[in-house]
């Protein structure tokens, strides 16, 4: 087992009377695909937001790649190699696929306080953009406005954007949400391919995807980790079964 790339130690987050994160802990090893699951309202999104920096925990610590990032702003974590894709696709609707990916690439190729040369002509950026497009299979859509892509294609592009900077780790927030069966198959293929290159934390509801892709799974209930282990261990875990109460927990 590799060492932890991401180490979450007892995060606590309260919203008024609601305890969204109750000593939430998690370890993600280098190279693995780790899934975070839990029933609705378990606090998965809150947890994810604290990991990427959009929310600051009340207590607890987060370590990434050996450094403490608990209070680091979002953009610095991204620069360190922690990338994220959103549950509700968050891209640049009015820009083309190429421009979307260009921006993603630009973020990791030096600073952007360059005022003269056309960004679209920059050979360094162009090459990286072509690679990014190929990785997610969107070459044919290069010049289409993001707003005109299909739901699944937008998702793919967003993943492509998250990966454009060769992140050390990818946080995926319910990528299967709203996906039809065809799209889900494509997405699983894509994630399987990505697994070989990147460490992934997959927050997800879709059990079949989780059980077929994950190396390890952590179960979150009421803001607390109740179990961590391989898919088989989790499937057999009585507490987990109880937490889901009748939800299908088979592969």
């Amino acid at each position: 087992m590799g060492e932890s790339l991401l180490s979450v130690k007892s995060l606590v987050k309260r919203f008024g009377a609601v305890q969204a994160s109750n000593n939430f802990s998690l370890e993600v090893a280098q190279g693995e695909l780790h899934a975070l699951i839990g029933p609705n309202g378990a606090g998965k999104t809150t947890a994810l937001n604290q990991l990427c920096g959009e929310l600051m925990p009340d207590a607890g610590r987060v370590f990434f790649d050996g450094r403490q990032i608990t209070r680091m702003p979002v953009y610095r974590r991204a620069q360190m190699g922690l990338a994220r894709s959103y549950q509700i696709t968050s891209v640049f609707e009015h820009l083309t696929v190429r421009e979307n990916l260009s921006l993603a690439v630009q973020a990791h190729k030096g600073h952007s306080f360059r005022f003269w040369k056309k960004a679209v002509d920059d050979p360094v950026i162009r090459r990286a953009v072509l690679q990014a497009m190929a990785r997610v299979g969107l070459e044919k859509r290069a010049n289409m406005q993001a707003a005109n892509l299909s739901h699944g294609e937008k998702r793919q592009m967003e993943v492509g954007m998250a990966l454009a900077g060769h992140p050390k780790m990818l946080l995926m927030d319910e990528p299967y949400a709203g996906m039809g069966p065809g799209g889900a198959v494509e997405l699983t293929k894509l994630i399987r391919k990505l697994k070989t290159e990147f460490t992934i934390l997959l927050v997800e509801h879709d059990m079949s995807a989780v059980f077929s892709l994950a190396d390890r799974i952590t179960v979150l209930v009421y803001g607390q980790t109740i179990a961590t282990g391989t898919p088989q261990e989790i499937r057999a875990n009585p507490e987990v079964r109880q937490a889901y109460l009748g939800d299908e927990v088979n592969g």
Partner: protein
Amino acid sequence: MDKSPVNRKILSIAIGSALLLALPVLAGIAGESYLVTLFSRILIYALAAVSLDLILGFGGMVSLGHAAFFGIGAYVVGILSFHGFEGTPIIAWPFALGGHQSGLVLWPAAVLLAGAAAAVIGALSLRTSGIHFIMITLAFSQMLYYFFVSLEAYGGDDGISLFSRNTFPGIDLGNDTQFYYLCLAALAAFLFLSYRLVHSRFGMVIRGCKENERRMKSLGFSTFRYRLVCFIIAAAGAGLAGALIANQTEYVSPGLMHWTRSGEILVMVLLGGMGTLFGPVLGAITLLLLEEFLSIYTEHWMVYLGPFLVLMVLFAKRGIYGLIAGGNNNHG
């Protein structure tokens, strides 16, 4: 891909530029020499409007305090020219700083000081967004307005007059036609620089920040820094326009930085079409010509312009440039 919007755009810009270049000649033929001064004014406001479009149309920052930088540029020229003419120093201690009359010294000074003010105001204001940002930029520009009103030494509310326009090597700024061409050159240069800016890496980042700031941060961009630099660049442009207006009217007053002036410039950007760079030029031309000619018919032309503006906002958001050039006007 449908080329006609691009062609219409280029054609309309070409025609417009030709007309502007020929204006003094046309005015001479028509015997209406006041048109030259009128259009000098229009070009200067067009410059201010284009600079606002950078942060508004491309950056998505709704600033109601842009006129502050316009006014600062004007006052730099006003104060330094005043001292230059009088021969008195501005400050004697800790070092002697005298006045100046040369545009080559004054105008860069105007640009720099406007930029410096923007660095301070922007650093404070850009921590906020939405309604907060609008009100804060408004408040800061009013602060500067009241500050200049309180400067008795420089005329307070009444402002100061310049005894003559600045000097500039090779050109006689006192000659209205030469001054007009200088303004046209300044506008053209700024438009060109803005065009490069908008398509550069920096420009892409700014446009990204407008479109989806959350995404930009999660990609790794420090959006605050980029916005601040954009804010400063826009202010520099407004400062240059201010320096020119001081020369054009040979007079500066705090009214130049009143928030209603910011509102006027904002209207020009919207009227012409924001996010297009050329739209604001059209907007300035339209608004100022409207003012000029409507006021012949009625001194209360604003009572018509007000509702017209409301209707425009509700029904015709893309502005005149959007109507002329058509198509997707998101690429300047």
